[in-house]
């Protein structure tokens, strides 16, 4: 996995360029205005002062206001002095967006993409007319796309979906870089490109990307057993954890407790585990106030087969008597889950999926993931997934079986097959 570091430099310079461009555009709309205005029909003979140079446009506004007088009879509201109507107005009401120069339309579109709740919100605008189509694909607009707007459904995956995500990633959208990186790495089997996209996002301190790269390092995904780099994994995990990523906090906590890739420090590890729980509670409370008013949050409501539903209970907090809904999965994880489960793409012969429902990651080589050391029937990409799945689902069904002779499992550094089982986690957390 050294190619990640090679790509870092390229990604870094791309990041710097993207950062500079964004800085300029954010600081001053003048910049966009001057760049765009060169090629457009409304701005001939424009003076430096904006606004003063659009006399034609003003006429449209006033005449439109005339037409929109409270009586919709459309007959003369004669108090306006100007009587010239532009030809468009007589035949067809002029486009509202025509009254605005491009930089303002771009600002509106930016707000649209950053608050869109699904891809349709934005795509419907692209279909309306040529101007909005052109402006919609502007890199500034795409770079502000929200996570939900990039939530491609795996069933609808196509070249154009791929192209759209690529456009957004090229425009500097971090979520798109991460989502496309995950899709390319795990679903399309393009390890190098996927990892480099995730690295690009990671350099911009995107916590999920850092965590995903950590998982890749821990498992040596995309390579062989010897490509595992535990210390790199811990370093990436730590960065994600310090940004507040809950899974990374848990993973780091377990690494510290086990001395895995880092010097063992059980107390510190437990601190991180508790912090993960606290953050999870805080996130849920701040994002879903309805959870507080609904009666269900003090009662245990196990629905393990309902994935990603808002009513699903956050499992680890149940230790403390708090049952709050688990946070929503990232669209990238949802995509992976759909791709390998409901769409039914097989990751490869003999390759398994992470048994935690919200994760969706597949193995990239045989026996990459570790199994539960008690029953051996489930396997996980990381300790964080194992801990979550234990509480959410597996604890109820895990039963000790005869240990098979190891032809199947990978060994830890200390020679044990699979992870510690969840019982140890129980004790650790109860004692805090």
């Amino acid at each position: 996995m050294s190619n990640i570091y090679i790509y870092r430099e390229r990604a870094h310079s791309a990041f710097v360029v993207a950062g500079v461009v964004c800085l300029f555009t954010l600081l001053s709309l003048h910049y966009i205005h001057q760049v765009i205005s060169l090629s457009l029909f409304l701005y001939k003979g424009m003076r430096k002062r904006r606004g003063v140079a659009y006399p034609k446009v003003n006429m449209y506004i006033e005449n439109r206001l005339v037409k929109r007088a409270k009586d919709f009879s459309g007959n003369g509201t004669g108090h306006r002095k100007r009587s010239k109507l532009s030809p468009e107005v007589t035949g067809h009401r002029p486009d509202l967006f025509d009254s605005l120069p491009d930089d303002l339309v771009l600002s509106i579109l930016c707000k649209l993409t950053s608050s869109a709740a699904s891809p349709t919100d934005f795509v419907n605008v692209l279909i309306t007319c040529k101007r909005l189509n052109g402006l919609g694909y502007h890199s500034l607009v795409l770079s502000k796309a929200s996570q939900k707007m990039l939530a491609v459904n795996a069933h609808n995956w196509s070249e154009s979906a791929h192209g759209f995500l690529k456009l957004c990633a090229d425009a500097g959208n971090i979520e798109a870089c991460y989502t496309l990186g995950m899709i390319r790495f795990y679903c399309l089997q393009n390890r190098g490109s996927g990892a480099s996209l995730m690295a690009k996002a990671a350099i911009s301190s995107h916590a999920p990307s850092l965590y995903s790269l950590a998982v890749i390092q821990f498992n040596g995904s995309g390579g062989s057993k010897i490509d595992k780099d535990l210390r790199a994994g811990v370093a990436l995990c730590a960065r994600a954890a310090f940004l507040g990523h809950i899974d990374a906090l848990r993973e780091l906590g377990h690494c510290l407790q086990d001395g895995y890739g880092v010097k063992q420090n059980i107390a510190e590890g437990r601190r991180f585990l508790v912090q993960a729980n606290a953050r999870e509670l805080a996130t849920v409370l701040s994002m879903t106030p309805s959870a507080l008013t609904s009666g269900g949050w003090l009662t245990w409501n196990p629905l393990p087969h309902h994935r990603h539903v808002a009513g699903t209970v956050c499992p680890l907090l149940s230790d403390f008597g708090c049952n709050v809904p688990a946070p929503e999965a990232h669209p990238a994880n949802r995509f992976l889950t759909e791709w390998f489960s409901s769409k039914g793409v097989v990751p490869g012969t003999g390759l398994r999926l992470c048994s935690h429902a919200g994760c969706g990651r597949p193995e990239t080589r045989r026996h990459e993931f570790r199994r539960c050391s008690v029953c051996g029937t489930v396997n996980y990409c990381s300790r964080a997934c194992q801990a979550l799945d234990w509480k959410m689902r597996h604890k109820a069904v895990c039963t000790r079986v005869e240990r098979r002779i190891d032809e199947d499992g990978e060994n830890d550094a200390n020679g044990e097959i699979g992870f510690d089982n969840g019982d140890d986690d129980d004790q650790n957390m109860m004692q805090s």
Partner: protein
Amino acid sequence: MITLQSSDKDVFEIEQSILIQSGTIKNMVEDDFTFIPLPSVDTETLIKIIEYMKKHADKTDSKEKNIKEFDKDFMKKTLNELFALVFAANYLHISSLLELLYPSIADRIKDKITEAIRQIFSIRCDFTPEEERRIIMDNKWAHEGTEIEGTLD
């Protein structure tokens, strides 16, 4: 007191302390202008802008809730008025007003099918039927099984 003149030649006298929220006016005032003609802002829009600036002029803590309420009500306007306000606020450099207007307009675009957006904003479709069909096919991935409205007649 500064005098503003709209494009309809209506004049308004406002205190300087309120008007400095507008970057453009602030610059002109610093250059010692007391009479400021605004040929690209008509009277109706100017009245609304002055109303906005008056409300936002004194920002004491107790009034923050009132200001928020006012902002919410202020955005309940027709699209024409909102667009006129965007244009004027951009000219006058009132960034706080722009930051209010953009999400309000964006919210009116969201959650609507293409034809509805066209009607609401009076957008004329200048695609040929083939182009439109191609664009819809290109973006089919976004529609998640929801029926794309019948613009293909």
